[in-house]
């Protein structure tokens, strides 16, 4: 199954990727001969049932995992061939992750959570704070900068998660069920934010979701079944 972006050179290029997991003596195929291209500035939604390989694909694009076979290129760089150390640096520079359960550090305030990826840069304290303030302003949470996650609502926590994902101005934002733990209204707010990041700031976003309502906010939707992209749905 192949898939191509509508125009321009792809930012993400997945060629012939297969992924197997070993469970005891059983070898389980999660991705099968998968090809995918994501253009710069795209907002792609990956849908499909549980076990279809959406999250695995997201992990491969984000350099958290490696394919058993095939290649993963981001911005022309073969990330599947990077060493663990190189991959860590590459993720810090190019990827912003948004998680379903926000995954904030409970012992850090919102601004210190957002600052985490910047600790890996050469920015000084003042520069880091400036970036943090900008990111929090973009998600509308400047007033909650000094608050701890436990004092925030789910929607606010996810906004902090998004601020953390964008604070380094990454090439690509990967969101795994970003509204999966939120009610419809709050989820819509998060989708508005992602949409704005895509439309107004040109961020390329790949989002995994079960929710057709969330997927409808993307510019392109792919439906995955049994480790392959089975259907492309128009926006």
């Amino acid at each position, binding site marked *: 199954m192949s898939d191509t972006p509508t125009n321009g050179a792809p930012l993400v290029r997945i060629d012939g990727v297969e992924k197997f997991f070993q469970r005891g003596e059983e070898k389980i195929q999660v991705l099968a001969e998968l090809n995918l291209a994501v253009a710069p500035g795209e907002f792609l939604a990956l849908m499909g049932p549980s076990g279809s390989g959406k999250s695995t694909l997201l*992990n491969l694009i*984000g350099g*958290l*995992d490696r394919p058993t076979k095939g290649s993963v290129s981001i911005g022309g760089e073969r990330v599947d061939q990077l060493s*663990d*150390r190189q991959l*860590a*640096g*590459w*993720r*810090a*520079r190019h*990827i912003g*992750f948004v*998680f379903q*359960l926000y*995954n904030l*550090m*409970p*012992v*850090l305030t919102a601004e*210190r959570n957002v600052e*985490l*990826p910047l*600790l*890996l840069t050469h920015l000084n*304290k003042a520069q*880091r704070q400036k970036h943090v303030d900008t990111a929090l302003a973009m998600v509308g949470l400047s007033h909650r900068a000094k608050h701890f996650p436990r004092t925030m609502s789910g929607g606010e926590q996810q906004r902090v998660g998004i601020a*953390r994902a964008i604070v380094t101005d990454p090439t690509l934002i990967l969101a795994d069920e970003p509204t999966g733990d939120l009610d419809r209204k709050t989820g819509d707010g998060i989708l508005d934010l992602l949409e704005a990041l895509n439309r107004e700031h040109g961020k390329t976003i790949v989002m995994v979701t079960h929710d057709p309502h969330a997927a409808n906010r993307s510019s392109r939707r792919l439906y995955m079944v049994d480790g392959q992209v089975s259907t492309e749905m128009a926006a």
Partner: protein
Amino acid sequence: MKFARLVLSNFKRHKTRTILTILSILVAFILFAYLAAIRNAFTMGVSVAGANRLIVRNRISLIQPLPQSYEAQIEQIDGVANATQAAWFGGLYKDNKRPFGQIAVEPEEFLDVYPEYIISAEGKANWLKTRTGAIAGRKLAEALGWKVGDKIPIQATYMTPKTGGNLWTFDLVAIQDGRTEDVDTSSFFFRHDYLDENRMRGQGTTGWYYIKIKDPARSEQIVKAIDEKFANSPFETKTETEKAFIKGFAEQMGNIGAIVTAILTAVFFTILLVAGNTMAQAVRERINELGVLKAIGFTDSQMLLMVLAESLLISCLGGAIGLLLGALAVNAGDPTNGALPIFNFPPRDLILGIVIVLLLGVITGAWPAFQAMRLNAVDALRRE
């Protein structure tokens, strides 16, 4: 430095557990300082013993006397610079709540053989002219509130006076200091001639001899020469270096060093388990968060160092405060009210303590840090 806040923030997670772990380390290091001082009290005499001093005692046992006539004969042996008599008095002062050693000595020779015992020139002159004169170590004098000019009554336990009863009265003529901090200043010395003239029995004998030799390298030969000289006599001698004598004396009470080491080993092994468990639990509980850090680009070595820094911080906090409090407790005085001649926390044990603090931090953090380093971000993120 920029990671410091991240490391420190982890202490906010389980404050009670962290505080209890730090407290347990703290208590262990107070104990370490205190036991080091006790061990030192029993072994310091060995380390400060003069290399140029020998002790001659009765071959049968220390409580058997030697004739005073041996002094002149010993001084004739090649290599001997000075020989001086000493006798254990074993008296009681008041209610004996603060026991101390009383030794009869020949003032001038004694101060020559023990140049590290310092008294004022005036005090020395008074001691030489006062038959009943005695000197007290500063630690002892301070503990009992004595000052020069005081009369010190001591009840004999076996050295009873000719005059009847059991009371001896001494005139305190000087306070003795040590040339260095580790010199004993907790004993009481009085004149041997006063003892000899006034005791009921035992005239013409002494307890042992302090010998000053000219060349420490020849000590073995001199030891042999002294013992050979008095072989097959009614009072055979056993001569040994002062170091060997003190060591043997201390070991009569058991090998204090080994006992202390055994106790500390048990304590630190327990602490190792306590602190190690805390660190392992701390890492286990936040696998998911560590996965996030890895996902956003923290490297394996950064993960390793962060966890190690955390365990080192816990160990250093508990250890530093423990060593400080231990040193203060030791400074406050020994648990026997001064019966231990020297009671301090030596610098070498402080350094050893610091090394143990660092080792504790590294060892307890090593496995959790390794786990954090080897963590697979995808697996970690799946855990909630």
